[in-house]
């Protein structure tokens, strides 16, 4: 456990306490209770069924696929799957909520307690407990900027399945909250139950933030609604925690309230106070019988679970000898891990990891690409490493070849051939170069022989340069040693 952030107030230290409610859109082609499509970016109101628009007499029918995904997610965080769960109606009026209620799970969620292990920047970990996951419908969208005097409603999102993943207040800094969000996103992507795309709104969260004197009782919390990027999560929490410290140190009390984050100003403001809090009048939805999940159903899903990041990391470190850093970097993204494993099948894992995390990721970062857009496929990287292994090229040349591969997408072998980069292993040819270099630097040779052995590197460099990097360094090394000691 790391200590988390401490805010230095005027009157002493303050600890930040954070819990998140993450809304993750279930990767499903159709909505939670209707057959309409969930495709992103379609014409407004083009994906709205009679059920989504809440016409009279319309009834919800549960989408079994969404139930499966919630169970899958529960299993992915080692959570209890509740054999019986129930849907409730959360009643409130809003123009983009056609039914006048949201179908959610209030008292009996589908998934119970679970756990997510978060890797911290300092190398440590923090266990964040998950209180529950429940299924619920998303609302539509109110568009206030389409007309000066009217609000427009788009119901495409109305009824889309969300998983609400509720954490315990186990995080102690904004960065931890951000890392938790990232880790959760990784797990969801591994599971395939949510695409984790925050830009498209597939994943967003509400943050419950409070401050307290270290070790004391929890303070009054405020809920910041609808944070839709990692940066906003960090900024909103940091601002809110400082605000709370200022309020308390100024002699006032924190009002339990719901707040909104203004990303432009970097501040939070009151959305509604506790007095204005809705009475949602939750009650069991009489249109839906309780959801019964059998052990067989759960086991069937369990069998299809992929290896998850924590297990993968463990295996990379213990079985493949990777460093914790490399393992973390590789498992953080399912595609990176897959890429790595393909390369590691043909080459020594540590070498593969090195080339991927240092060389490939460096180039990807520079060009702003993600692994799925990488112009060098795993097969092509294997080809490049083959050339190093069989001494066709040196590691140094290989880096140049990788640059060309990155730009052109060509195979390493072709690049090496086209540019005549094949490593020289012919000893007579190498001997000629060595002799020439030594002859040119007779003075330094004398110094070396009189004890300045550090000059060895200088000779190596000169020889490699003279061979345009093509001489096999191991052979050069060996022959040079021989020549200098003779």
């Amino acid at each position, binding site marked *: 456990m790391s200590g988390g952030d401490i805010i230095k107030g005027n009157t002493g230290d303050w600890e930040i306490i954070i819990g998140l409610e993450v809304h993750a859109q279930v990767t499903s082609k159709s909505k939670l209770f209707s057959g309409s499509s969930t495709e992103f970016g379609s014409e407004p109101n083009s994906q709205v069924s009679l059920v989504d628009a809440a016409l009279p007499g319309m*009834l919800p029918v549960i989408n079994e696929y969404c139930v499966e995904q919630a169970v899958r997610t529960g299993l992915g965080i080692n959570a209890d799957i509740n054999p019986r769960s129930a849907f409730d*109606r959360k*009643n409130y009026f809003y123009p983009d909520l056609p039914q*006048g*209620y949201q179908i959610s799970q209030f008292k009996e969620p589908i998934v119970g307690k679970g756990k997510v292990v978060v890797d911290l920047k300092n190398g440590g970990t923090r266990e964040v407990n998950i209180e529950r996951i429940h299924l619920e419908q998303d609302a539509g969208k109110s568009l206030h900027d389409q007309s000066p005097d009217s*609000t427009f409603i788009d119901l495409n999102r109305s009824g889309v399945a969300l998983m609400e993943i509720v954490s315990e207040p186990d995080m102690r800094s904004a960065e931890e909250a951000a890392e938790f969000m990232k880790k959760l996103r990784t797990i969801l992507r591994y599971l395939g139950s949510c695409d984790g795309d925050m830009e498209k709104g597939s994943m967003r969260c509400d943050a419950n933030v409070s401050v307290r004197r270290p070790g004391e009782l929890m303070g009054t919390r405020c809920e910041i609604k609808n944070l839709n990027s990692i940066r906003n999560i960090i900024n909103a929490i940091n601002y809110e925690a400082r605000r709370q410290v200022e309020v308390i140190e100024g002699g006032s009390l924190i009002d339990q309230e719901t707040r909104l984050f203004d990303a432009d100003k970097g501040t939070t403001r009151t959305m509604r106070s506790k007095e204005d809090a809705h009475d949602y009048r939750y009650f069991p939805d009489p*249109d*839906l019988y309780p959801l019964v999940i059998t052990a067989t159903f759960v086991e069937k899903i369990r069998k299809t679970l992929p290896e998850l990041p924590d297990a993968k990391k463990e295996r990379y470190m213990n079985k493949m000898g990777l460093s914790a850093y490399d393992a973390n970097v590789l498992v953080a993204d399912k595609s990176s891990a897959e890429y790595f494993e393909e390369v590691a099948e043909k080459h020594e894992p540590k070498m593969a990891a090195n080339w991927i995390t240092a060389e490939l990721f460096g180039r990807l970062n520079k060009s702003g690409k993600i692994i799925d857009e990488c112009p060098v496929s795993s097969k092509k990287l294997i080809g490049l490493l083959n050339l190093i292994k069989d001494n066709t090229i040196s590691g140094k040349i290989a880096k140049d070849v990788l640059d060309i591969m990155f730009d052109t997408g060509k195979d390493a072998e072709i690049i090496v051939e086209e540019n005549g980069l094949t490593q020289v292993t012919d000893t007579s040819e190498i001997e000629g170069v060595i002799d020439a270099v030594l002859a040119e630097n007779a003075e330094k040779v004398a110094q070396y022989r009189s004890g300045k052995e550090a000059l060895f590197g200088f000779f190596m460099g000169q020889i490699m340069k003279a061979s345009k990097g093509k001489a096999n360094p191991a052979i050069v090394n060996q022959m040079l040693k021989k020549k200098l000691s003779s």
Partner: protein
Amino acid sequence: MSELNKLTLHEARNGLKNKDFSAVDLTKSYIQACEKYKKLNAFITETHEIALKQARESDKVLSGKGRPGLLEGIPIGIKDLFCTKGTLTTAASKMLGNFIPPYESTVTANLFARGAVMIGKTSMDEFAMGSANITSHYGNVINPWKRSGDNKDLVPGGSSGGSASAVSAFMCAGALGSDTGGSIRQPCAFTGIVGMKPTYGRCSRWGMVAYASSLDQAGVMARSVQDSAIMLESIAGFDEKDSTSANIPVPHWEKEIKTDVKGLRIGIPREYNVKSLPEDIKALWEKGTMWLKDAGAEIVEISLPNTEYALPTYYIIAPAEASSNLARYDGVRYGHRTTNDIASIDDMYEKTRAEGFGAEVKTRIMMGTYVLSHGYYDAYYKKAQKVRRLIAEDFRKVFEKVDAILTPTTPIAPFPIGERTDDPVSMYINDLLVVPASLAGLPAMSVPAGLNSEGLPLGLQIIGNAFDEQTVFNIGSAIEEAADFKATPEGF
């Protein structure tokens, strides 16, 4: 060809089959009756042109071009809470005064698939909330029956009062109704016809304007038990679009009807003998019991100890669900929206709903909102749910000992329009004896069994075990035969 409308449904069906008359003839006869008895105000929307078109189609089928359906060419009235594609569906509310559904409810789709002809959309209490059909936005429905020697207009009962009046006055061969807490059985008793509410889950609720989802059930109203069996067979069945619909096959009730009740055990629940039960109703109940006993049934005195809590339980659960079900009528997407100036979205909601809903609907929305509110939920809604389970349990235990239960349908006879309006409870008492079966989701029928001293029809109720509609039809037939109830409202 006169008076074809006086035939029972199965008589009409035979006539069509034997080509004694055409479906168009039959339909015209009903259209004439509708024109003649407009004063009863039984219909919100008459669909005579659609009816004639459907009748012509049926005639083609009946002349050998296709296989006639169970209801081929039979004119049926449809309670205006079943969504009918392209035809105004109001639920008798101003709120839906302009609502033309782009879809067909499962129940009416089934009906039309069996060849039925839609004569019109019948009036009802607004959103099915009422027991006298005096809460419709489209005016009161009048019962065709009158007290002997008294010309006062009487209520037809509710909420399916339009369907009841229409069937009773021969304006259709049968009608669809819906029963949440007696809304089929009570008006059928008040108008001297047969009404059948099947087991909850037997008919799909898809496309039926919701009042209280856990109680709402479509059913049928007709002039004979056999007719009601034909109709129920036509509309029942599993529907994957309704998660509460039961995935079990629909029996051939009509074919299987047996009037022989020998050996059946009939329960007479002590708690239904309420103090306020009038002597004539009590006498009819005893008579009904004797008929069944004489026919060889075994009469068993039973106890349903939680009966007295049924009405208050119903008036918590039904309004609670209604307050949520009716939230969608907000003026945003369809239906009424205020044309008055509005200052905010909340103002729009308030004005729209204040204008669109009638007083009884508002009362129930407020009651329902209250019982679900924070701090009251446990005391009202949760407790009511517990009591509801106890009531269902009472029935479950009793059905280990009996095959069906016999009771009066109503504790009162039809009363003049305007009476029982001062105190809502005096109106709610109408449903005292019909509500328990609704809470337990059990099939129940009202059969006309006699007239009271004022010449008004009275009904007996048969409650069956879950999904055992057949026994209810059988006992209903036995009573029908024994009662030999032939009375019709004077002048119709």
